[in-house]
């Protein structure tokens, strides 16, 4: 039995043959239906291009206001960092850190880890600490919640819109675009291709 041609379902441990998929699609476990792996269109080059795009969007999303409020002659804006700072100053450091972690630090870690692995790989070089950075990537993608944050900003916009003049800022659009690009990264990234490039089986 050749171990290289077997894989175990991550959710039920059943061993199955690792037959290459002819077309871009997901392979599901025959017993429990979990996704075994996906063969993505475009491969790692597409993932890298999307990652660079996402990093630019994340920078924009944090450089500009998400929402702007006008009340009488006063004008205030909210950025993600500003929201965390406000919570911190109100004696809620843990909530502030949680918001910062899930909407900024974890997505940034995920994108930075992807870029760190994929840029040298495009020239056939294995980045130092490959395994550790891959584990960081897996952790960060579980805890980042960009799409939830975008919905949260929309709810805030509507909620406050009932009592005051609120306008969406540039960063809301950037975060919305980031949400879509990160979904595309998820759909295009095939970790198996990553490993097969650095250690051909």
């Amino acid at each position, binding site marked *: 039995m050749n171990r290289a041609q077997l894989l175990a379902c991550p959710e039920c441990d059943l061993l199955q043959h690792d037959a290459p998929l002819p077309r871009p699609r997901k392979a599901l476990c025959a017993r429990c239906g*979990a996704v075994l792996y996906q063969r993505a269109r475009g491969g790692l080059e597409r993932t890298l291009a999307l990652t660079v795009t996402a990093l630019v969007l994340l920078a924009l999303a944090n450089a500009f206001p998400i929402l702007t409020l006008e009340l009488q002659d006063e004008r205030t804006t909210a950025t993600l960092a500003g929201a965390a700072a406000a919570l911190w100053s109100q004696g809620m450091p843990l909530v502030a850190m*949680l918001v910062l972690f899930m909407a900024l630090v974890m997505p940034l870690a995920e994108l930075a880890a992807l870029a760190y692995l994929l840029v040298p790989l495009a020239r056939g070089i294995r980045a130092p600490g490959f395994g550790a950075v891959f584990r960081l990537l897996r952790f960060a993608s579980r805890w980042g919640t960009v799409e939830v944050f975008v919905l949260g900003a929309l709810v805030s916009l509507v909620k406050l819109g009932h009592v005051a003049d609120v306008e969406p800022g540039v960063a809301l659009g950037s975060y919305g675009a980031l949400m879509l690009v990160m979904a595309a990264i998820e759909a295009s990234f095939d*970790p198996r291709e990553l490993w097969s490039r650095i250690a051909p089986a």
Partner: protein
Amino acid sequence: MNATAAELGLLACGTCGLLSRAPAAPGAACPRCHARLAFRKPGSIGHCWAYLVAAMALYVPANTLPIMHTSSLFGSSEDTILSGVLFLWESGSWVLALIVFLASIVIPLVKIIALAVLAASVQLGWRARRGERARLYRLVESIGRWSMLDIFVVALLVALVQLTALAAVRAGPAAPAFGAVVVLTMAAAQSFDPRLIWDGERPAA
């Protein structure tokens, strides 16, 4: 092929998926990505229950205490998560009211109950409905993150309205409790090992 990796003495890496032959010493690392290897997540059910009990305890203050104080020239008010939903509903934003109600109240509760059922079913050695329980686990894992919604809303409202002279919004004591429920239920879902649902099944020929 009709065996699990564990039955053949193979360890599947939970991080990168590589199969490797089980070493003699426990606590070995994956040869490819160096993540810790185990046949099943160590202490899975115990950790899951610990996170769940803590989440259940904090679910009560998260929903009964105010999550937001609003003060203005016209007086001050306090909002719980539920009264925030009612405000959205009464002001005509039915879709958003429904979304916030699902994300903040229904999803955490569904997660806690579903994970408790899954953990108990493994402990009691249930054989029935393995496919349905596997699907339930995948559902719980995919919806969990949406509970963060209300925390993000409070954070943005606090940032927008804290500096104006006419009004001020402050986060209430339910905010840290609710944040903790989100983190604890996500940790409970990640500590549960879905492979335990299938252990002991004889795969059909």
